[in-house]
């Protein structure tokens, strides 16, 4: 397996940069995925920070590959980030479509961290 991954790494190394504009950049990402090349940790962090907006636009039907190419392309080659993305995407999709009901819970969360109401306010709820 290592030798095969190395063979794909060699393709990337041999190509050098800059790449020809005639080449579909997706082919390079495919080779990168086959080589199992990890991107720098900073790429994962940037991707993680962008995921809420990326997913929000994706469920809204926008062309996220065109709007956020860096995020999309990182997700193509980084399995851990892709796994996190899919979990968020699935949750967002179900919540937005109302398939997970938001109901009043018998044991709601503790909101004691909230500051007290300013004087004069009356709680209507």
């Amino acid at each position, binding site marked *: 397996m290592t030798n095969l991954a190395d063979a794909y790494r060699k393709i990337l190394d041999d190509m050098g940069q800059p790449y020809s504009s005639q080449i579909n950049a997706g*082919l390079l990402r495919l080779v990168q995925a086959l080589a199992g090349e990890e991107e720098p940790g900073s790429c994962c962090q940037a991707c993680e920070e962008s995921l809420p907006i990326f997913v929000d636009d994706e469920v809204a039907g926008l*062309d*996220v590959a065109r709007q956020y190419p860096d995020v999309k392309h990182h997700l193509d080659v980084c399995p851990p980030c892709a796994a996190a993305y899919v979990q968020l995407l699935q949750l967002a999709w179900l919540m*937005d479509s109302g398939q997970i*009901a938001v109901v009043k819970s018998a044991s709601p969360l503790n909101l004691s961290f909230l500051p007290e109401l300013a004087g004069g306010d009356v709680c209507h709820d």
Partner: protein
Amino acid sequence: MAEQLSRELCQTVAGEVLRQRDWRLAYVGLGISECLEAGFVSEVFQEAQHKQREASRIQSLRQLVERAVITCYCRRLYQACRAHRTLRQQRAWQELSAYLLAAACWKMPDDPAQAQECAQQALLSLWRRFSDPQWNLERPGALLRYAETALLREVWRMWKEQGKRWEKEKPLEGPEQEEQGDRETDERLASGEALPDAERETLRGEADQRVVAAIRVCLRSERQATVIIETFLNDRSVLEIAEQLGTSPENVLVLRSRAIQRLRPCPELLETLSDVLSD
């Protein structure tokens, strides 16, 4: 006759979405009356028009308006979350906590106590950020995505502490389902449905065609081949591919991972890529 985007439709859908979730911040007097704020409906209408212009993926008009309602409501929710020491702030955090709890209970159906703990921690992490007056959310309309992200972080942290591999938690598409999926995909191809057109539309030049041919030689599964071609050569997102194949986004990822494992030792693809990229 097809439904048209209108203020009336926005008002109807907004009422349904808000009632279903018990969201009251867009009602006059926080829901004491049943009267939606007029400004809210106008905002939803504008947002729906914007989404209609920008959307590249086909969805129903109702879905589009529902998402516009959620986006507009998130903006109010965010403002209210930061409206210090007011009734609106209290209401906003109650709604956010109910949302997080529902999501957590779905994510951890077998353990309500842990779900509650994760939701509580996510809520606190949001509070810590929101209460900093120097900090602003990049896009308030996506507030619920930030909340879900905070929740998932807590769930993963808890699973990690318990030594649970969260990537493997959900049942994945097994070989039998994959074969069944392949049969369905083949039927759709035979009947002239979307797949070949989508490919023809975007694949560029001879190099791409050679790589596609090599991928098909190396992968026996049509679904795996489609996932690889659409992801890398046609630059489509996971959700688009999931809709195209009629499967879940999670399964698209499984298919992709299996395809990469099968493609890696395949000499035909190595040779073709080496050839194409060294030209």
